[in-house]
């Protein structure tokens, strides 16, 4: 029997591919949730640093978190890498939105060529991931983050935990790649009973930052978008920055051979520099979101190395809004970059004015009585994070405008179903189904919560917030806002929903059906003279047509 064991070189290559695939997967997912459009350049000359022949940036903090979670291991059976995407409101309530799972199962494909087929399929899978990350509900939520909520990520390794997604979550499979050691599968489980957050709703609610816009001298904060274009500054590493972990410098030089597979040449070499060169260390300015905890994130500086081709800063369109991740051990405690499992002390010396900016950016919260917003001591920041965890207030009027359940493609099983179809309202299909239970909905009429002293003096609402437990942060979190957006239209003779459904799936046209061969030859021949006559009549047109081809 042929030796089907993996050669040691192949095994090494495969492990490397899987490792970098995992890291790139995390990058794609997190970058897709930063809230900004991603844009990277194609390059016809291989730079050797783009894994899987795709231009995917590496945000150092994200790589760091991923490596920490993996702790030197690779996805294996029972050990999956998961990226959890959650939403956290300005009141401190949070909810898991998605879990992206990179798993390995036992089904091996011994025949497959590692350095060629597996590599290319992993590349294809990353492209699929790029596409799929834009079509789950959380994408649109993340594009609108910054005012009332932010999107956060957490990476963990081990068993997949889907319980936080609520009832009836849906799964989409991104793809699979068979390898000699198992089959890699990438999928996403996403919450569906918080399906729809209307743009219209947000336009009605003035953004928090917008109120205090004139406080800014240096950096006006446009109320329409929380994002800032990249603002690159070459500068010194000040230690709060991540060390570029050395194998992120690893160069992947791929050479493929078109000769028989046995002669495939694939080399992975370390870049010729072993220590991260201070070539161009750009600083990303992280804009502050007007939320209680966000200053911790903005106090870090992200730095990364741009692609070797030296693409200019102006055209990178690199996402800037960055939401930090949760510490795996303390899911609600935010991690600041540069520190293991805790909250980082913020450098007291501002560099390039960033700190000053950030402090100033933080002060809008003063406008809402958030006086503890000095990020200069970890003590304060501990307090902040704890209290933001503890806040489970009654922002019912704020949240009410955020969460609307919609009957639509992403809604699977609405809670407390009430059939509305027979009610005499227009577009009953589209109306949220829960109107009668609004009074019982705790989010509409929140239970009374005890007043507790909070270091945060006040919240975004003038009333104090409660320190009640976070026990129900994972509960189904549905605000019902029954305001059918469309009035009844007497001109329309039938229910729009029915009408819409009907034409959404039109019957197959017989002329487009494939069994054209069913037509008899005789029919064709019979119709020929007629057709010829028509063509002869139009001979001038055809001549003109032929003219255009010249």
């Amino acid at each position, binding site marked *: 029997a042929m030796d089907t064991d993996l050669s040691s070189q192949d095994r090494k290559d495969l492990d490397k591919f899987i490792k970098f695939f995992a890291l790139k997967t995390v990058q794609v997912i997190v970058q897709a949730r930063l809230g900004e*459009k*991603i*844009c*990277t*350049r*194609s*390059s*016809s*000359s*291989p*730079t050797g640093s783009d894994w899987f*022949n*795709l*231009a995917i940036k590496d945000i150092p903090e994200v790589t760091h978190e991923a490596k920490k979670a993996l702790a030197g291991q690779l996805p294996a059976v029972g050990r999956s890498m998961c990226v959890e995407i959650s939403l956290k409101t300005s009141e401190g309530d949070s909810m898991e939105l998605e879990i992206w799972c990179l798993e390995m199962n036992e089904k091996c494909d011994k025949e497959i060529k590692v350095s060629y087929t597996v590599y290319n*399929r992993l590349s*294809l899978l990353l*492209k*699929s991931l*790029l*596409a*799929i990350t*834009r*079509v789950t509900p959380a*994408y*649109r939520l993340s*594009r609108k983050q910054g005012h009332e909520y932010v999107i956060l990520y957490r990476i963990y390794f081990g068993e997949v935990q889907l319980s936080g997604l609520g009832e009836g979550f849906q799964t989409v*499979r*991104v*793809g*699979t790649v068979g390898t000699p050691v198992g089959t890699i599968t990438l999928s996403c489980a996403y919450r569906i009973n918080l399906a729809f957050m209307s*743009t219209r709703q947000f336009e009605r609610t003035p953004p928090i930052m917008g109120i205090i816009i004139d406080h800014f001298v240096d950096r006006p904060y446009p109320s329409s978008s929380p994002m800032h274009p990249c603002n690159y500054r070459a500068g010194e590493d000040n230690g709060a920055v991540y060390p570029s972990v050395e194998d992120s410098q690893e160069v992947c030089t*791929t*050479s*493929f*051979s*078109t*000769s028989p597979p046995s*002669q495939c040449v694939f080399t992975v070499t370390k870049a010729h520099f072993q220590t991260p060169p201070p070539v161009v260390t750009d600083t990303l300015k992280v804009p502050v979101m007007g939320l209680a905890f966000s200053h911790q994130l903005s106090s870090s500086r992200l730095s990364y190395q741009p692609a070797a081709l030296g693409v200019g800063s102006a055209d990178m*369109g690199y996402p800037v809004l960055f939401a930090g991740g949760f510490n795996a051990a303390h899911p609600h405690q935010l991690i600041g970059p540069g520190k293991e499992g805790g909250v980082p002390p913020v450098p007291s010396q501002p560099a390039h004015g960033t700190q000053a900016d950030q402090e100033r950016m933080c002060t809008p919260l003063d406008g809402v009585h958030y006086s503890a917003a000095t990020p200069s001591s970890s003590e304060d920041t501990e307090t902040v994070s704890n209290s933001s965890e503890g806040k489970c207030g009654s922002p019912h009027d704020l949240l009410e405008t955020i969460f609307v359940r919609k009957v*639509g*493609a992403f809604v699977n099983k609405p809670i407390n179903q009430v059939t509305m179809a027979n009610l005499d309202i227009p*577009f009953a299909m*589209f109306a949220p189904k829960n109107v009668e239970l609004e009074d019982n909905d705790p989010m509409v009429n929140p239970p009374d919560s005890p007043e507790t002293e909070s270091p945060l003096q006040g919240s975004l609402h003038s009333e104090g917030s409660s320190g009640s437990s976070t026990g129900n942060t994972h509960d189904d979190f549905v605000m019902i806002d029954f305001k059918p*957006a*469309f*009035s009844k*239209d007497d*001109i*329309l003779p039938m229910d*729009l929903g029915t009408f*819409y459904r009907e*034409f*959404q*799936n*039109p019957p197959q*046209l*017989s*002329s*487009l059906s494939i069994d054209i061969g069913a037509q008899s030859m005789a029919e064709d021949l019979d119709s020929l003279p007629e057709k010829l006559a028509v063509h002869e009549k139009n001979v001038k047109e055809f001549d003109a047509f032929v003219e255009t*081809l010249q």
Partner: protein
Amino acid sequence: PLSTRCCAAPGAAPAMNCRAEVLEVSVEGRQVEEAMLAVLHTVLLHRSTGKFHYKKEGTYSIGTVGTQDVDCDFIDFAYVRVSSEELDRALRKAVGEFKDALRSSGSDGMGQISLEFYQKKKSRWPFSDECIPWELWTIKVNVVNLANEQERQICREKVGEKLCEKIINIVEVMNRHEYLPKMPTQSEVDNVFDTSLKDVQPYLYKISYQITDSLGTSVTTTMRRLIKDTLAL
């Protein structure tokens, strides 16, 4: 209806099968372009590689493909496309023609646009090269007219959701890892890939469309393209 197959002589049927996928969408007139571009770009994202650079001994290296997000103006939807202005222009041109044809045909607004991936097989003179399709994507479009702004708003959201489903469908097909042309040698690369773009390298493809007029007969403008291609050889 005229066949949209490429220039292969009918007798020279290839041994391999061409897999065909059909997607259907109902959209408003102003959404046609964006919806088509979203689907076509998503397919081409998966069917484009970096530029090949052949080296000695039959080895080659592959360039890097960049990607970018595109937001739709008339649909609540966003998609990812390959960062290549040339490719984007080519698709926009084809989709623009399709949209114009839909509009001017006076039909009920039904038509379909097809994206076909093919390989070229050289034949000896006087026979022209064969084009052997290996994957065919067909998007059937039904254009609807909406009466008022409320309907249009629903349509924005609904079409956005439908497109999300289409993207998932496309990815499912791509994940099957079915037939792909063998990686070509340097002399064969133009038979498999379109090497004319400067930054990316899609598989050889052609786009054609059919408009169905109200009589149920279809008019295709592929003919023009085919004739042009044939004459160009």
